[in-house]
């Protein structure tokens, strides 16, 4: 046999559109990621139209939006949800229908760039309703855990190159050396707690800091809490030692 057909899973980034105003969206995008950035590495992208089911107008400048995403080294490959006209438009642009796609990885929402938009009720962050996801094995480089719609508790080390993602809070009762992404679906009240904070990246509701700027000595390798602080229009991560 010259071929083999296999079932394969593939992590996608999801871009949830919260406004049908493409111009504004592109403007927000450029503001956040610049025109062309090295932030993405040819990642496959799902366009999530779930919040745009009202009305039945195709998006203006849809091809310009796709071009912008491609210039940022993203590959739009599929779409989910949306009104009929929008779905037809996406299908015509060669995107696959992926209504069954599960948020198995970090959802990349435009939340951090969104404060200028009117917060619609549909986009309101969901509080975790079920108990936390408990992980008791070490997470090593390349491994990823996502607590969908809930908190995440990890009792073993999270090594450099590993990723812990939760829609709610993240607690790590061991050295946290990988990436920690709390409030992945936009919950700005989410926090990250670690008993030994040495993370490569900390992110809450899309606001992130990398270890390029070293953590301040009063929290580095110490027990600490990270939360999002909003001051006027700016947001920043506040990192405090836990006494």
């Amino acid at each position, binding site marked *: 046999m010259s071929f083999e057909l296999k079932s394969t899973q593939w992590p996608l980034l999801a871009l949830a559109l919260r406004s049908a105003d493409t111009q504004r969206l592109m403007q927000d995008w450029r503001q956040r990621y610049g025109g062309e950035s090295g932030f993405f590495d040819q990642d496959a992208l799902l366009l999530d139209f779930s919040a745009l089911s009202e009305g039945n107008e195709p998006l203006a400048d849809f091809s310009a939006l796709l071009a912008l995403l491609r210039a940022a080294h993203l590959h739009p490959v599929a779409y989910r949800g949306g009104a009929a006209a929008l779905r037809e438009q996406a299908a015509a642009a060669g995107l696959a229908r992926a209504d069954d796609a599960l948020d198995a990885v970090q959802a990349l929402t435009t939340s951090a760039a969104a404060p200028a938009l009117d917060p619609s009720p549909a986009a309101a962050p969901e509080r975790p309703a079920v108990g936390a996801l408990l992980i008791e094995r070490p997470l*090593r480089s390349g491994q990823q855990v996502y607590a969908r719609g809930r908190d995440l508790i990890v009792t073993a*080390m999270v*090594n450099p*190159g590993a990723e812990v993602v939760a829609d709610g809070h993240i607690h790590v009762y061991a050295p946290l050396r990988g990436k920690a992404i709390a409030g992945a679906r936009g919950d700005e009240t989410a926090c990250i707690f670690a008993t030994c904070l040495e993370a490569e990246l900390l992110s809450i509701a899309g606001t992130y800091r990398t270890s390029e700027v070293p953590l301040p000595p009063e929290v580095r390798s110490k027990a600490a809490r990270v939360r999002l602080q909003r001051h006027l229009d700016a947001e920043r991560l506040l990192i405090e030692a836990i006494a």
Partner: protein
Amino acid sequence: MSKIVVVTSGKGGVGKTTTSASFATGLALKGFKTVVIDFDVGLRNLDLIMGCERRVVYDFINVIHQEANLNQALIKDKKCDNLYVLAASQTRDKDALSQEGVERVLNDLAAMGFDYIVCDSPAGIEIGALMAMHYADEALVVTNPEVSSVRDSDRILGMLSSKTRRAIEGREAIKEHLLITRYNPNRVQEGQMLSLQDIQDILRIPLIGVIPESETVLQASNQGLPAVHMQGTEVSEAYKDVIERFLGQERPLRFVEAQKPSLLKRLFGR
């Protein structure tokens, strides 16, 4: 009952093949019937290190594809009675490794009464490395005292605990051993290399040995001789300690302390 040991690392050039050759040789010298298999299809090296490259007629891929039988492909080592080499193919690529084929060959080797089957993994995390680790009972994770090597080993440890047969079938986990190679205590002291403590702080698996950085390794591989045969050298002694510990003996760590310059050297600055 034969035991399958994979020698793996993720990163290339850290000493997997050197370790596979010396480890397999050491087990054979202890009287165990041992075979060492090169999984690095397309970039075979083990036969060079073992000094049997001119005797390779049939290889692992031929056996997998049933173009030759094991008796034709197994190369008997010239220095040890109990040691056999199964060379990789230089002309094929790693897609020629099929999981069923690898399993059949391992089963056949077990049926031939081998005590230990040592699988020399290629670098990377692709099919060759996955095949080498898939059926393993124990793993030697070879790591150099540098950040990139430690991270790659961490990645491999994650795969050992999720992608191998023991993990998939939910059986007892693969027994993992950390082997640190190219360790230079003086450079550790000067902060140019990660210390044993730094490495274990990240990887957190039991340490089976430390092989010092030494020119002996290069000399041995140029001669086509496993380094464990270089009698009287630190590298040879360190590999012998590794084998003793693998077989359950306790051995103190050697060659891990920085050498202080002698009084004369300090006085005369030489």
